[in-house]
């Protein structure tokens, strides 16, 4: 039971690295962005996990309970999710433009095209 208390953090570590693997090992640019999204999701999970307190509820006052999970990580992640989708969209826009100019979204093919 003692170790079970760390399971959430282990999931964070593994998810983070699954995402990172896609970023470094995959050559497809969209796959890299998918990996980046997973990486990002893992960080979100870490923050929200840290804010949880056992026996607590969502930080909305007035439900009769007095134990609240920490609101601060929630605020940070709430805005981070919206910022995340905006930056992902920018990345996808870049990929679409690359495809239009090079006709490919595979990193090795693009690099081969760039060499004179």
């Amino acid at each position: 039971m003692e170790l079970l208390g760390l399971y959430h953090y282990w999931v964070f570590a593994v998810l983070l690295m699954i995402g990172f693997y896609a970023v470094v090992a995959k050559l497809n640019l969209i796959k890299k962005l998918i990996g980046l999204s997973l990486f990002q999701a893992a960080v979100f999970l870490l923050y929200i996990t840290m804010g949880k307190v056992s026996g607590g509820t969502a930080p909305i006052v007035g439900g009769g309970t007095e134990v609240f999970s920490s609101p601060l990580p929630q605020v940070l992640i709430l805005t981070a999710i919206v910022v995340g989708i905006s930056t992902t969209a920018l990345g996808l826009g870049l990929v679409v433009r690359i495809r239009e100019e090079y006709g490919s979204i595979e990193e090795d093919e693009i690099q081969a095209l760039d060499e004179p």
Partner: protein
Amino acid sequence: MTTLFGIFLLTLLLITAVAIVRSRNLFISVTLMAIASLLIAANFFLLDAADVALTEAAIGAGISTVLFLGALFLTSEQERSATSRRLLSFAVVAAAALIVIYATFDKPRFGDPQAPVQVHISPWYIEQTRELIEIPNVVTAVLASFRGYDTLGELIVVFTAGIGVLLLFSSGTPSADNRLLFSRLNLGLRRYLIPRVVGRLLVPFILLLGFYVQFHGEYGPGGGFQAGAIIAAAFILYALVEGERRALRVIPQRALLAMMAGGTILYGAVGVAGILLGGRFLDYSVLAADPVQGQQIGILLIEIAVGITVTGVLLSIFHAFAARGR
């Protein structure tokens, strides 16, 4: 019981993540991403983060999937090249994962009430929200009032990303086969009975939920970021069902641009109004005779500003992708 359910969801999430990376078909990867997002959102809910769960469900499972599918549409669905230096990458990643796991042994256990995050600053925010702002949702109070500077900064990042996407797509010419594909997309799903009926039924209710989430954000889970995402999702659904052109007739491109800029300006204007009325930047207490009421008015205005900008940016990005083939 809840903990066990959480562990079950997290395990499913890991399995999904492995499948996402392993799949060679990007369409499958993107669809699985939507499932992963939903699992994450369910997990947020179990972890008492109702606001965040709402945002993740609307953005991760909804809008993000549509954008990725749009990008796949404009590029290709199949991943071609092999993985580069697979063994080396795997070794590096595995070693890093082990280091992070080793570091977690020093972390406070899950749900520990004595963890620094619980005892350091959180009680102060909860206490001060009751005293100074008097709205039930502490997350909204911290987001819009105590940390209003951060939120302004983040809104500007969202705005900038939206401008960036529009700028990227303003140059170059879309390829010919894209144009062909999109002439079909412009019809939307009108030809198909079930998507048409279900879509038309759902859009008004999603909009209603969006406005509820916007204006109820001080009392329950909700606020501008979530509402913006939900309202944008409603219009995107409308565009998918009725075709992109009809959706643009409801909110034209110019209106979207005005929303993007207008929301950000409104946010800044509320801040400046604080200075003009004798307070500091983003100090809402001076907006009304009663400081508490001033805070509440300020938060309401800020949330509206955020909602307008987020809706405008997300819809602009969607239309930028969708219009690429016209």
